[in-house]
């Protein structure tokens, strides 16, 4: 039971943004969704949030279609979209109280819950500030706060840590981990380390399809790729970089140290290392992984 996605497809004018995606969320925990821009992650999440209807396939919760469940399903849903919009003239507390009202919380419950989530995201001192005056990190925190106002059983977070500084990211990671103890959290991100440390299961999405899925250690073992550390001259490094996927390049005492991902040893003196999720991301998505502005 739980949340189940079956053969889900979404077409926009003949273009398949999501193509026959199937998976299920049986247990509470963090489910990581990885993919480059345009892979279909946001479209998939929007369908799970009932914001758009699928072209075909189904999404069920406890065996019932989520679109038929209507409000009953949205009652247990929390969503932080990638582009988190808000009402700029509202103060943080007003914004959250408004969202609490459309989430069906009574006025008394809303007051208590708003105070609680503000403490959870560390925004209690900024609650009287207008939303338009918040920093990017603070806005994301309010975004998380609104998503958990109704104690959702299903929490969908689309790029929740985008634009946050390292301290805030760590704080978020811990919060997400804490929240996942008693709910399903679907987390989409470019930042591999966010998922690596908290996700119980990971999905790799490419061109609208799930290409890899499973527990981190499981999927790392399913691919034939290996990681090689190679030390060489800059000229040689340029040649190797054109030939293979390179997840890191570091200058080291006049020579260059490359982290190469390939199935075969790229050069004689290459030293094999353990494959990480970040390496795997580059292996799966190739050069397209570059459009994440170095976040991976």
């Amino acid at each position, binding site marked *: 039971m739980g949340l189940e996605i079956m053969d889900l497809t979404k077409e*926009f004018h003949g273009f398949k943004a999501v193509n026959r995606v199937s998976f299920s969320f049986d247990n509470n925990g963090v489910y990581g969704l990885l993919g480059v821009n345009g892979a279909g992650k946001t479209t998939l999440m*929007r369908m799970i*949030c*009932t*914001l*758009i*209807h699928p072209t075909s396939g189904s999404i069920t919760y406890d065996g019932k279609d989520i679109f038929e469940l*209507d*409000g009953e399903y*949205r*009652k247990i*849903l929390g*969503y*932080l*979209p990638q*582009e*988190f*919009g*808000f*009402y*700029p*003239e*509202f103060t943080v507390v*007003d914004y959250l*109280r*408004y*969202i609490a*009202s*459309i*989430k*069906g919380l009574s*006025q008394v419950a*809303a007051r208590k819950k708003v105070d609680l989530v503000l403490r959870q995201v560390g925004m209690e001192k900024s609650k009287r500030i207008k939303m338009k005056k918040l920093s990017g990190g603070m806005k994301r925190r309010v975004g998380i706060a*609104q*998503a958990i106002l*109704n104690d959702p059983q299903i929490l969908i977070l689309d790029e929740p840590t985008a634009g946050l500084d390292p301290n805030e990211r760590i704080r978020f990671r811990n919060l997400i981990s804490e929240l996942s103890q008693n709910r399903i959290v679907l987390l989409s991100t470019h930042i591999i380390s966010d998922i690596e440390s908290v996700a119980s299961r990971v999905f790799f999405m490419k061109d609208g399809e799930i290409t890899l899925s499973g527990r981190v250690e499981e999927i790392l073992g399913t691919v034939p790729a290996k990681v090689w550390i190679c030390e060489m001259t800059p000229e040689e490094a340029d040649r190797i970089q054109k030939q293979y996927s390179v997840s890191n390049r570091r200058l080291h005492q006049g020579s260059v140290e490359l982290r190469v991902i390939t199935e075969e040893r790229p050069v004689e003196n290459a030293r094999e290392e353990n494959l990480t999720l970040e390496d795997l991301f580059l292996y799966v998505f190739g050069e397209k992984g570059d459009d994440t502005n170095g976040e991976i």
Partner: protein
Amino acid sequence: MIQMVRFEIKKMLSKTGGKIALVMIFMIVVIVSVFAVRSVDFVKSDGSSITGIRAAKELRYMKSAWTGYLTEDVFAEVIRLNAEVEETPEAQSKDWHESNKAYAMKQGYLDIRDIINSALSPFREYNYYNIDGADPGVASEIYERRIANLEKWLASDEAKDRYSETKKQFFVDQYSEIETPLYYEDADGWKALLEYSKTVIMLTMLILSFLVCNIFSGEYHLKADSVFFSSLEGRRKGVKAKLLAGLLLISIIYWSVILIYSLVVLSALGSGGWNCPIQVSLYGWKSFYNITFLENYTLTVLGGYVGILFILTTELFISVITRSAVVSITFPFVLLFLPSFVGSINSISGILGLMPDQLLQISVAVRLFNAYEFGNTVVGALPILFMVYSMLFMILIPVIYRVFRRAEVC
């Protein structure tokens, strides 16, 4: 629900544009009220003139002598008094200051003088000096001449093909049905109120259109739609709250504007004459609607309300469909200004009489000869306007609800 409505109203009013709109509405009420009050002028016996509250008070005092039924004797008395004034050196003088003194002597019966002038003029004309050479004998024909003038006009080249025989008969019947002699009392307050009501209502509508245009499209514009629609009440009470907040804001602001405007003008110029038929003034002499000043003003403000509700609800509907406040806000402007551009096309004059902008200017519409035939029954434009746009408004509300709650966030 109340909480949601409260926040929706806050969304509209917390923006700088919303605050400016509120200030503008307040300023408009004040300015138009001042204009209305100052529209009443009184010429003192020395030829100098004053306007506003004092002028209204002086006029009220002078006109009070003529309160009562406008019988043949009253008309004859006005013709006689007017002739007497015309014989005075002040009236004969070419000096405007002296002429003003003569005018000052006529002010008490100016409204009755206007009626006599209208009765003595062809239907589509008005000659201020007609009474000057009039025989007191015409006093007995004033009401008959009103009907005769209409009949003559309906048979003229201008109107003979414009109306069917049934419609012509309807207009004549309406004219004949009015109970004469008409009861007269000074109604300068109501006349000023009616004259400027169109300005107040139209400007209020335009400003309100700015205030409410973002109720629905704002969610898309601010990218707040994802959170809104993925929430429990986002596709249910959330939509109802938006509609309710919009209607509440429109209603509260509109009726506040009308209340302030009416109170200011009537307290300054007087509220007497409310029960007089509008035909006892130059303003309503030719109207085929047999109503009093109070009824006319009630229809005007109710019409304004229905019109504003319909126009702004349509604006909201457009914003739901197009997801754009800019596109939706053009609708009220087009609706107001389009009739001015196409008004000269004769073939569509009948349709123009039923456009929703007419509801915003009932004080003007009561003087227009717009009537419509349904089988053998002829109905004036006003009942049709009220019925059609009230119904369309009531249809639009559930349509907006259904369309918006099914919106997808792509």
